[in-house]
């Protein structure tokens, strides 16, 4: 049981390491500042492994430094060093100690692997979400509530979320670093399930982590963790009848040009991202961050205009037709639709 004693002695060191690493990165993005139990479990293993590995590095570096200083060949030295064949005891030592270190790391690893295998798919208390990856956006369907949305995943704080993930085209990988590790979205036949929860309310950044084409780096999304009441409210307003532009002519343009691929509430086709409550979203196209202060992006109206004027330059290789060139919309119509979408907020 010496190994476990050794393991316990590492604990204070891992705690200190945790404090140092916690200074790294944004709270809503960094692996090193976990905001939920799944990310916490990964981080604990990282701390344990980094501690062991730093110890190994210190030993190797010290021996190397000692040897390089002590056994330099001094000028004029002619005698031949003793030709040592090996040393059985030493060789056993540096075989057995790494083996012990591997065991110390392997036991909690295996435990955590099986814990992470609990996908909450049959848990009646878990919120079920179907995630579909598209080039280059994310679709979220709340199967129990009949609600579909895109880019902003709204979840009730503290509840387990049971995900079922697939892709509509190429492989993607669903990753919210501060909440959990990632998992790939595969085509039907190899559908993945996993689960995480976010105990604290807040907005977390998510990314696609599997190369999926030119705009792979722009396939970002947000996870909004809200209170139970807010979540219920959000579901209700998502299910409310669709709001269309007030100007009937603009509404017709919107219907004929946009709703051929997009949907608002019960109207339109959900081939592209759902636009219901677009004014309440955290970003436009996942990459133009909405921020009225301008510190971390631009006001939403400006972002929608940027996007609609030239989607290709914002997100190369995306499948949205150019509203002006391909759909024949005028600048006035584009501005009108932008204003409507920016104003389409949820309660």
């Amino acid at each position, binding site marked *: 049981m010496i190994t476990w004693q050794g393991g316990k002695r590492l604990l204070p060191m891992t705690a200190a390491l945790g404090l140092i690493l916690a200074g790294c990165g944004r709270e809503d993005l960094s692996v090193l500042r976990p905001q939920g139990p799944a990310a916490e479990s990964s981080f604990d293993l990282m701390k344990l492994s980094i501690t062991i590995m730093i110890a190994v590095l210190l030993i190797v*570096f010290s021996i190397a430094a000692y040897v390089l200083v002590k056994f330099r060949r001094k000028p004029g030295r002619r005698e031949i060093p*003793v030709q040592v064949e090996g040393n059985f005891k030493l060789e056993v030592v540096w075989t057995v100690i790494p083996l012990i270190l591997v065991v110390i790391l392997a036991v909690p690893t*295996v435990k955590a692997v099986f814990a992470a295998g609990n996908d909450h798919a049959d848990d009646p208390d878990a919120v079920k979400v179907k995630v579909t990856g598209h080039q280059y956006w994310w679709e979220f369907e709340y199967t129990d509530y009949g609600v579909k949305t895109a880019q902003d995943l709204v979840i009730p704080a503290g509840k387990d979320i049971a995900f079922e993930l697939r892709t509509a085209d190429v492989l993607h990988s669903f990753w919210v670093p501060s909440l959990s590790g*990632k998992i790939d979205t595969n085509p039907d036949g*190899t559908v993945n399930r996993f689960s995480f929860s976010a105990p604290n309310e807040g907005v977390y950044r998510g990314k696609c*982590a599997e190369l999926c*084409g030119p705009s792979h780096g722009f396939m970002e999304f947000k996870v909004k963790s809200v209170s139970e009441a807010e979540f219920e409210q959000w579901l209700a307003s998502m299910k409310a009848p669709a709001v269309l532009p007030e100007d009937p002519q603009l509404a017709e343009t919107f219907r004929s040009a946009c709703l051929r691929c997009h949907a608002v509430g019960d109207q339109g086709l959900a081939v592209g991202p759902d636009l219901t409550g677009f004014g309440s979203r955290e970003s436009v196209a996942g990459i133009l961050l909405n921020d009225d202060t301008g510190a971390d992006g631009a006001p939403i109206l400006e972002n929608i205009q940027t996007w609609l004027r030239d989607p290709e330059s914002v997100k190369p290789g995306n499948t949205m037709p150019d509203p002006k060139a391909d759909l024949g919309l005028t600048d006035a119509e584009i501005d009108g639709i932008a204003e409507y979408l920016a104003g389409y907020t949820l309660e």
Partner: protein
Amino acid sequence: MAQTAQSLNSARPPATGHRVKRHTGLMDWITTVDHKKIAVLYLWAGGFFFGIGGLEAILIRIQLIKPMNTFLDAQTFNELITMHGTTMIFLGVMPVIFALMNAFPSSADRGFWTFLFGGLLLNLSWVMGGAPDAGWTAYTPLSSTTYSATHGVDFYTIGLQIAGLGTLIGGINFLATIITMRAPGMSYMRMPMFAWATFITSAIILFAFPAITVGLVLLTFDRILGANFFNPETGGNPVLWQHIFWIFGHPEVYILILPAFGIISEVIPTFSRKRLFGYSSMVFATLLIAFLGFMVWAHHMFTTGLGPVANALFSVSTMLIAVPTGIKIFNWLFTMWGGQVRFTTPNLFAVGFIPTFTMGGVTGVMLASAPADFQFHDTYFVVAHFHYVIVGGLVLGLFAGLHYWWPKMFGRMLSETLGKWTFWTFIIGFHLTFFVQHFLGLMGMQRRVFTYLPNQQFDTLNLVSTVGAGLMGVGMLIFLWNIFITSRKPADAADDPWEDGRTLEWTIPSPPPEYNFKQTPLVRGIDAFWKEKRAGHTSMTPSEPVGSIHMPSATILPFLMSAGIFIAGLGFMFSRDTFGSDLLSFLFNNYIVTGLGLVITFGSMLLRSLFDDHGWHIEPEELEGR
């Protein structure tokens, strides 16, 4: 160790005669069967591809120097990362390894030409409609025709297929040479570690390359003939590609690193004036790494969704590799312990290798822990890890080997001053580039992104990384300058220029004569030359009298065989295209170009088989006359 020169005093075949056609100039290089010249060809070809891969890397780092940079567009960036990875792994470092490994065995001409034509084909993609853009891993469906419509991925599959064939032939050659052509007394457990590394690496090639060959054939069929191996809509499975790719891909990592281990195991004893510590445990550690290397491929797929049982098993098997690797690190350290360490350029690279590679090794163990890997996977943490292993391990090892054996290969010592400048700029640049990338990954930066948003705390670290890459580039330029000025010096390197040479290559002239050893030496133990020197001898004891040496004839057939495969590959790739010219369409669409290429290849093989060439002899008078 083996040598080409076989003495056939008795049973001399009815030779084609003493006077044989000796080619000069370009024809000499194209027809050569001298393994040393082939090694030089590998070296220049590898250096060329390494240069291309390096330029691609610099372009990538310039694009990432600041957030939302527009230096490159997204598509070009994806092509660059794909080609950087593919070129470096398959074409850049492998041939340099082969160049060094060719110090030992006999002719590897087919292997080289096939490899070169494959590599050229792959790089032709830049000027023939677009480079591959699906990453060097070419995951399906992204690499299918639906999502990658240009011929880029075809260049990848067919170019790698051909280059892979060359590698496979090379590997078989090394195996055959080491098994059959060791000098008298050179038992397996007396072979230098580098020969052992070559032997084991070749065995891995023999088992791993068929897997990628099959995978590439399937992907080619999917893309060109419309098969459905990886197409989910028709019952294919994209995860299958990942398994096939990594069953090859992980052993490939050891194909790259084991030769570096071998080089380090030669350089450190020489410059410590001590025999390698724990030789037999080094051999068994290498064997164990090679064996375990085939048991760990799914650790590249922890986030694919294989389930907890597979993830747990592959976590543990991966961690186990740390044990034999650790044995090697400590053996190197204790080789220096009690020795007299000289800091020549090769030894600086070897000594720099130890801590750098260890850092790559420990992050490898961290990655092995699946639940932690859920976070590390596909981030800059992984990018940092594999560059520590491949650049910090393999490339430093190659530099050690190149500086070490340069006088033997070319008869000229590289400048030590410039060599030390290369070392310091390269290694400082390396750590600047890649150390910070660990933190980028942990802070949420995924890999293979062509740019990133500001305000994510990524900016400074990326800037540092790009500056480091520039410094590595400076190191490379100094190295090239060193080669250039050295090539203008007289070829006057001594047989044993480092004075403490321990192995047989240091007993013959620099550069070695065509026949290598005038008389096959008798090997009396590990570090055969060192043993003779300690016994007061200045040369090896020969195991045979001076006699006529049988030499193989120069031939152009291997070059033609490879050229034929190149033509066939190109023809097959464009077999479904429509061309502006009717003649071209006719030639390509009816597989006439493909057929022509195959006729050249198989025709050359037929000629090779039907006509015996008994080679020629170098007579004793000529040997003594030199």
